[in-house]
């Protein structure tokens, strides 16, 4: 990974991660960004199964991470997709693991 790509992916700053995750979820759910908060549930945003798969795709692409999500076995992902805050926290953990891998 080159320096400028690392730049683009962000350095794991929590506020930036939260902002990016909110952007992605709001965009996929087709709602105003301002209406989405940490306590918003994905169900109330009417995120259907394919929407969720697209959100995960966008998150993986944005942060260069792998989210081990299987629609048949959602519990195995290690990331909860109940509330927006769960997603932010789960993604932050995966980004931290990514950075450990890259510096190792």
């Amino acid at each position, binding site marked *: 990974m080159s320096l400028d790509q690392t730049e683009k992916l962000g350095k794991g700053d929590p506020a930036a991660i939260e902002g990016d995750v909110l952007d992605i979820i709001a965009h996929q759910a087709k709602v105003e960004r301002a209406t989405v908060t940490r306590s918003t549930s994905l169900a109330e945003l009417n995120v*259907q*199964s*394919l929407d969720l*798969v697209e959100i*995960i*795709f966008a998150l993986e692409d944005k942060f260069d991470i792998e989210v*081990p*999500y*299987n*629609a*048949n*076995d959602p519990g*195995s992902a290690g990331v909860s997709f109940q509330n927006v805050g769960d997603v932010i926290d789960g993604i932050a953990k995966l980004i931290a693991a990514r950075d450990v891998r890259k510096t190792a």
Partner: protein
Amino acid sequence: MNRVVITGLGAVSALGHDLRAHLEALRAGRSAIGPITIIPTEGLITKIGAEVRGFDGNAYFENGKLALLDRCAQFALIATREAVAGSKVSFRQGLGSRTAVVIGAGVGGQTTLDENYYRVYAERAKRLHPFTIPKLMISAAASHITMEHGITGPSFTVASACASANHAIGIAFHMVRSGSVDVAITGGTEATITFGTMKGWDALRVMAPDTCRPFCRDRKGMVLGEGAAVAVIETLDRAKARGAQILAEIVGFGMSSDAGDIVLPSADGAAAAMRGCLADARLAPEDVDYINAHGTGTAANDVTETKAIHAVMGGHAKRLAVSSTKSMHGHALGAAGALELAATVIALREGFIPPTANFTEADPQCDLDYVPNEARLQGIEVAMSNSFAFGGQNAVLAIRRFT
């Protein structure tokens, strides 16, 4: 209207390269799911599949011909040879023009497409082999069958994703029943275990990492299969007149569309196709002994299909047997219905119900008799075979034992 019977059958899948191998594997309840070996799996989440193992096209086709055949066309031709040989039908003396070829395929020449895209996009190849297009076209398998057997009647390919083969067989059945042709070669073929396709399946997040466990509490999704199965079907009068072997009778075909979701199934849509099939066959729910389920092993399908069976069969739902042979030969997409027809015909002929392999513990929402793990010695008279595709295209066949 003509009665329509199956007089020849051939199959190639992970279970083996001929019908005999299928019979043995189905009776033993042996799952052929294992590590994918025909492509590198580094970079894939899904590393298992139900491959046609030990397959070498050179054993079946001379060099000049092989160059024109995608893996899916090879499977279809091999299954057709077995079916035609078994039926002892001869297409000479005009029968070729009274015969149809109707083959289901979900994707077509995917290996050819993948390899050639790689050459142009990744390797920047300046030119591609001139057979690229005739190899990759989804209808190639049906065309090659007509050429190899001298069939000049109608031929075409039916695509409805995972229901392609059932749609193809059902349409061919109706063509023979109505008298528009006397004989049909029909089935399905698929070979899509390619790196590009597997990346696509990975992205959809529905593939099992371990194995295919339809209707189980701990099921984790589907496992991709590949292969082909082909039947020779003809009017009962014709089969009797020429003293042909009669393997089973096709008695009904029903279709419906969910008009719902592009991936999620609908119990109403599935039930409508099953009801349509029973009506077409003039059967009552109580007549059905066995259902070869669509049974993909995904969270959504298995619960939805169970609901649909309850809705159609009422109190009889708990008395009939339901199994998913995808637990053994994987989900072969456009070939699925054909491989499952082969399994169903074997079950009717041999007097056993193929099991749902890899069975652990039933999902509480799946409360039917799924014939766990071991084939059941039981004579059956009437069976149905379900195929419910992505995009809500449903097709159900009914088969009766011929005595």
